[in-house]
């Protein structure tokens, strides 16, 4: 089930559905909806809906003042930035450290390739990968071919590490 119904309910003719949508938006502190909710609080023909909208708008304003946003919450939940020391430790581990066996190096490469593919997968994944440098918006990403590629993406914050490196 997608979330399109929320917007539909908010705009819909059924006052009960509008109330339900307002309550959901308040519950999840969807601050992007504050303008819409504020508008409803002033303009909805139903006094009951206006009242719920005022309540929801107050919650959303509080959330906004706290600095909450859906984008930030999603970022924190699904793309946590690695701690700087952990990131540095991982990057250091990508260098050829004396004593690391070739098998460990290969295993590490496999792990990062798998995570990188997950991180960069797109709907156009079935399309042929674009090898040359794109001059406009690419339809698909060029292939990631080396540890250098990975490190460069990491530095740009485009890859979020979820790799645990073993010691030794």
């Amino acid at each position, binding site marked *: *089930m*997608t*979330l399109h119904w*929320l917007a539909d309910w908010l705009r819909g003719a059924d006052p009960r559905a509008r109330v*339900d*949508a307002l*309550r*959901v938006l*308040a*519950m*999840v*502190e*969807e601050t992007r909806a504050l303008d819409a909710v504020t508008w409803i609080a002033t303009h909805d023909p139903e006094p009951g809906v206006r009242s*719920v909208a005022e*309540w929801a708008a107050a919650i959303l304003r509080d959330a906004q003042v706290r600095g909450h946003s*859906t984008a930030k*919450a*999603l970022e924190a*939940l*699904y793309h946590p930035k690695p701690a700087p020391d952990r990131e540095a430790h991982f990057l250091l581990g990508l260098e050829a450290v004396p004593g690391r066996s070739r098998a460990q190096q290969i295993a590490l490469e496999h792990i990062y390739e798998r995570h990188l593919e997950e991180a*960069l*997968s*797109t*709907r*156009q994944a079935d399309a042929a990968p*674009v090898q040359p*440098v*794109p001059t406009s*918006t*690419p339809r*698909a*990403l*060029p292939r*990631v*071919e*080396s540890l*250098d*590629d990975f*490190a*460069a*993406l990491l530095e*740009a914050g*485009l890859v979020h590490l979820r790799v645990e490196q073993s010691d030794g």
Partner: protein
Amino acid sequence: MAEQAGALAVWLERLRSNDPAEREASIRALELLGEAGALPALAAVFATDPDPALRLKAQTAGKAIYYAALHRSREIGGASETEQQQAAEILAKARARRADRHLRE
């Protein structure tokens, strides 16, 4: 799928129980189910339940379900065009640096 819908219906019904313990169990179960269809019922608890602790639990569960649904829809949509462009440029630069290093070696 039908099993999931059946479970959703059962827990939504129990969410209306007079027993706070049963409502709390329902909130936990609905969060585990992760169905966006539970959001209006959880929001009703958040807005009207007499128990403040349950209101908070309903909000926590509702947020978890909402964020998961948003995340799924973003994943289906894939990386943004800006992110793709940025990644493509970074990869090209990394490749150029590598080629340059090979030449010098």
